[in-house]
């Protein structure tokens, strides 16, 4: 929210008694007021959806853990202590120690940073590309549509992980390359979705009116079609985060994503693999973290779909 809108909120809240009253006012007084009221309504609907709320809580906890990792961690995540290797969970080491005597709990916290970093950065790269390709193809139609959608089809012909693996093999292992590879593999479904949305909008009267007023294609696409596609893209992107987290963990597990001694969860799983038969916590804990995070994004995505995109619920 910008400073201007904040001060406006404060002013209106002060003049009408309280923020709650302002949000529940029967008739909105300005477009901004209406938008805030709608947000409020959507938040209330999300609040009444238990599983989505659970998903949101887990995501928030993850974000906090990632942000506060240096404060919450109890040990240095790279410090090896071979005398204290493979210790079961205890008061000293809340989630035990790994094969090099490093504290699993502290590494888990820093691992959250890497996982969220990969998921968020990939989304920031993928969503705009998918939106632009999809809306352009859908609005312009004709050969532009054919060419772009053929390209999308080619990318969709590979399962996500296989394509990401092939790109990583060519680019070399590492987090940056993993992000590039996952992005290259996950933009096409968003483009497809945005195109489908565009096709339902492009014949509407208000688009025809814009055209008659002489608006350029670019203006119509970015000013009037993209905003209409955003709700369904937000839903899709949230669900995608779960898939991205799994792919990133898979790459890490195969030794092609983040490299040891990085505390990325998949990498932790793969380096603890040989000791898993005797020390279950080494693999159980990072795996549970991956499962919970991916589950949270799935639940949140399903909940957001009910709210933002009721047609496909």
């Amino acid at each position, binding site marked *: 929210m910008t400073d201007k809108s904040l001060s406006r909120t404060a002013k209106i809240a002060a003049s009408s008694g309280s923020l709650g009253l302002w949000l529940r006012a029967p008739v909105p007084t300005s477009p901004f007021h209406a938008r805030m009221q709608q947000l409020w309504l959507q938040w209330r609907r999300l609040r009444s959806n238990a599983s989505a709320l659970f998903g949101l809580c887990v995501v928030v906890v993850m974000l906090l853990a990632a942000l506060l990792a240096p404060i919450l961690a109890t040990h240095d995540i790279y410090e090896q202590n071979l005398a204290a290797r493979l210790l079961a969970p205890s008061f000293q080491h809340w989630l035990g120690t790994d094969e090099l005597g490093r504290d699993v709990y502290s590494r888990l916290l820093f691992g959250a940073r890497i996982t969220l970093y990969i998921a968020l950065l990939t989304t920031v790269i993928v969503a705009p590309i998918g939106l632009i390709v999809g809306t352009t193809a859908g609005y312009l139609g004709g050969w532009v549509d054919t060419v772009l959608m053929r390209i999308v089809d080619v990318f969709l012909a590979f399962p996500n992980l*296989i394509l990401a693996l092939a790109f990583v093999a*060519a680019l070399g292992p590492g987090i940056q390359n993993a992000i590039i590879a996952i992005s290259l593999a996950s933009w096409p479904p968003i483009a497809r979705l945005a195109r489908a949305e565009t096709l339902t909008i492009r014949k509407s009267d208000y688009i025809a009116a814009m055209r008659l007023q002489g608006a350029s294609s670019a203006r119509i696409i970015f000013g009037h079609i993209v905003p209409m596609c955003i709700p369904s893209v937000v839903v899709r992107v949230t669900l995608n985060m779960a898939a991205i987290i799994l792919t990133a963990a*898979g790459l890490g597990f*195969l030794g092609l994503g983040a490299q040891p001694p990085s505390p990325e969860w998949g990498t932790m799983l793969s380096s603890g693999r040989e000791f898993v038969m005797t020390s279950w916590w080494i693999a159980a804990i990072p795996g549970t973290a991956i499962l919970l995070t991916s589950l949270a994004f*799935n639940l949140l995505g399903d909940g957001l779909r009910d709210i933002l995109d009721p047609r496909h619920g």
Partner: protein
Amino acid sequence: MTDPTFPGPRSDAGNVARPNPAFALLSILGRTLLPVFVTLFGLAALTFFIGRMLPIDPVASILGDNATQEAYEKMSRALGMDKPLWYQFGVYVKGILSLDFGDALTTGKPVMQDIARVFPATIELATLAIVIGTGLGIPAGVLSAMYRNSWLDNAIRFTGLIGYSAPNFWLGLMGLVLFYATLGWIGGPGRIDFIYEFDLEPVTGFHLIDSALAGNWEIFRNVFGHIILPASILGFGALAYISRMTRSFMIEQLAQEYIVTARVKGLSWARTVWVHAFRNVAVQVLTVVALSYAFLLEGAVLTETVFAWPGFGRYLTNALLVGDMNAVVGCSLLVGVIFVTLNLICDLLYRVFDPRTR
């Protein structure tokens, strides 16, 4: 056909309404095959891009870093690096058409030969997985729709969500710890115990079938003990997808009026659901099953790594780890082709078996 503006005698209306199915199939083939060929060409272009243009030095990425200068120059010439790009692409496509992906660095044999060797193991695993996933997933989805919003529905949906969200390589590891190391119920990693490995006469390449054909039930039990856990874990992912899709198809059907009619006629609820509603979604469900079969190939990459399963996924992983681009490109291209083919088959199934789409 009569002039549309003058509806004449309707004697020939029956012929017009029912076109020859063989002809319909041909026209469908024509309409669907062209985009498929374009997509396949695109696949070739994309894999060419990944294999030859992305690596800074394609020759080194094929030979590895320790290649001699002589070998380097030989490979460089063999790849046609001195030729223009379009020429290289032409040679590449020609190789693909004759199923020649070059030699794999890891084994020194042609990639295609390697894939043919490891593929039966994956097919066996994936087939058992899809049997498990379908056998449990369809009833789960239908039950979920029948008792919508009940505790049963919630339990099934939650299980499905776990199937979506759990990393299958982790499930595999945990399964090994529990069922192999702790309980000792199943065989460990690998396809078969070492002592039996050379007793088995390879006929089909599928261990389960081979041992059954030989009538050697001891080996059969051993093989089954090895395959059941990885297949269940792969099948769990398929189950999640199949039950979710089946549920939403069935909910849509159960809201239709013909369901009410059937009930009013006095049919039992079970018969209405299974015979009337399910028959209408059977083709849709079938395509979902076919698609999940393709997705199992993706799941196999990680599962096979965990279970040391000597299949396609582990071959691909090993190739990735040593940067064997010929094998990587060959494998990904193959997966792409399988995907496109399965999609095409689904499309045809739909049109042939579902009169509503004609």
